[in-house]
């Protein structure tokens, strides 16, 4: 009972600490805003095709709401209007793309972060806990993976695997686990020599159990902080790949792909391209605010849980 009380007041203190910092509050507010948009995407931007009617005379529902419907056949950017508040590009509604792109961003960012971090934890804990030649081999492999620039590696693998955002995610996971592995290994090396681990070993507790029950809970926080700070850069890289025209299929509701449309219009015609500002501004701002939210949250978590890193 007493223990419980102590924990809850500890939690309250932490929360107070986080919310005293205005930039942290801004980060959480932005994040909640994006979560709401992602959850209510079907209500905010209805997944219908206004060009086609079904048998009952209603607008046709989209088979796949993540593919932006083509609503005009002209490709030229159309400025914002009452009906299309963010304008249109390549015959597609930018507002629709920005709203559904939020889901894409969360989906890609969270999946890649979680899977690559888990894989990193696995490699890092095996390496750190067992040491010796296993450690040597695993760390040299980590070195090799770290020697390939992330964007280039992800680019090559995405191209090889072909179209689809799942391909982007696979590519980013394959080349994205090394940071977590190194961090967890370093932490484990530190924790390993502590008395309570030595005691558990002396009592004959199984290795697997020691790692899961005693080592990881004591080393996991920096990894979580690192993961939340990586979310932003992962979303940027994924968008960068679709910006280069890799991975995401044509018309996929993804912020990077929408900017890819824009790029062609800016480089293709000179002179009046500034009148296409909305085609850069809305998807671009969505991306900047999304990444900003994760960076602020990551910063706040770091300041609270790991003041040494400040």
């Amino acid at each position, binding site marked *: 009972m007493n223990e419980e009380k102590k924990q809850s007041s500890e939690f309250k203190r932490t929360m107070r600490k986080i919310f005293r910092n205005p930039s942290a509050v801004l980060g959480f507010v932005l994040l909640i805003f994006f979560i709401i948009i992602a959850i209510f995407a079907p209500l905010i931007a209805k997944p219908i095709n206004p060009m086609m009617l079904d048998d009952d005379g209603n607008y046709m529902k989209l088979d796949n709401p993540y593919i932006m419907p083509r609503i005009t056949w002209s490709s030229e950017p159309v400025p914002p209007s009452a009906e299309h508040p963010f304008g249109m590009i390549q015959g597609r509604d930018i507002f629709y793309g920005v709203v559904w792109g939020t889901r894409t961003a969360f989906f890609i960012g969270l999946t890649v972060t979680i899977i690559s971090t888990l894989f990193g934890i696995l490699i890092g804990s095996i390496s750190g806990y067992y040491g010796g030649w296993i450690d040597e081999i695993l760390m040299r492999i980590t070195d090799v993976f770290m020697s390939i*620039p992330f*964007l*280039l590696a992800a*680019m090559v693998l995405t191209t090889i695997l072909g179209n689809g955002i799942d391909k982007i995610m696979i590519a980013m996971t394959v080349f994205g686990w090394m940071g977590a592995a190194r961090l967890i290994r370093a932490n484990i090396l530190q924790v390993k020599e502590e008395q309570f681990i030595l005691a558990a070993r002396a009592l004959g507790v199984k290795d697997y159990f020691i790692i899961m029950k005693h080592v990881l809970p004591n080393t996991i926080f920096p990894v979580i902080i690192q993961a939340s700070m990586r979310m932003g850069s992962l979303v940027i890289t994924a968008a960068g790949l679709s910006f280069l025209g890799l991975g995401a299929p044509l018309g996929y509701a993804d912020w990077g792909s929408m900017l890819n449309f824009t790029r062609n219009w800016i480089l293709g015609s000179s002179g009046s391209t500034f009148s296409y500002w909305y085609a850069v501004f809305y998807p671009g701002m969505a*991306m900047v605010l999304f990444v900003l939210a994760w960076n602020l949250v990551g910063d706040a978590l770091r300041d609270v849980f790991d003041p040494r890193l400040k």
Partner: protein
Amino acid sequence: MTTFIIRRLLLLPLIVLGVSLIIFSLFQILGPDKLLAAYVNPNVFDKLSLSDLQVLKEKYGLTKPFAERYGIWLWNALKGDLGWSQVGKEPVLKAIISRFPYTLELALYALIPVVGIGIWLGVLAAVKRDKFLDQFIRIFAIVGWSFPDFVFGLLVLMLFYSVLGWFPPGTLSQWAEEIVKSPEFHKITHLVSIDALLNGRLDVFWDALRHIIGPVITLSFLWWAYLLRITRSSMLEVLSKEYVRTARAKGVPEHDVIHKHAQRNAMIPVVTVAGNMVIGLLSGTVIIEVIFNRTGIGRLAADAAVQLDYATVLGTTLFYSIILVLGNLIIDILYAVFDPRVRLG
């Protein structure tokens, strides 16, 4: 120290070998048919019959087992033959060497504002801790850190090219390109702007500068944030140290306390970051070069990746990994030089 350097240098071939093995294996996912496409002119490719394809596959050794093909590639690579670059229309090694100066030039130009202004702002923010200026600089930094490079690049292109017409995309204007390619133009450093100065062609120099400012602005904005944050926190840590208090107590002028006593010590972690940044600039200019339509090794790699030109992809990736390993080694050495407490072992 010497043993440390030698040991790390001995590791270099191993890492390069590992990198080539990874990239080479990844390409095997494609299967022999798609791999063949890298060798054959795409216009002809669709008209080939099945038996033609088989002949070609055998000619390029695509039917051989993986280990043998990798062995052949490795043997040729050791002799300096990295294959033919479809994208560059010249041997891969030559394509890399001819494009590297452009990327280097961009990185060098970007380094000046990034390091100069980044460190200056970082120190300023630390000295004015929690004042308005500090808050402002920090907001600037975290917003800059959140900007994807291609979004900011597009904005720069829109503003300075479309609206103002100051900084066009590309590497050089047509006329300047012709001068640079002409035999009278001596290539001494292979950095276009420097060569133009050495040749006394101020007009070419100015043209090269106009083309490089856009990417430099973009790169600076994105990297300031990074350097600034490290400088600020390192400076704050040093400013709270005993010896700084002692210096103040004995009446050293505030300017000297900050710039002589504190800043020098605060620069130690900054060296590492600046080193990482040079590596990042050299390998991270892929998207910048694509947006601004510049010649360079990043664009070569990007074009090759998109067209699955695997000889070029292998070559550029190896090149990058060598830069990365050597760069990290230099950072470690510098770190030991700047901070005598660090022992390399």
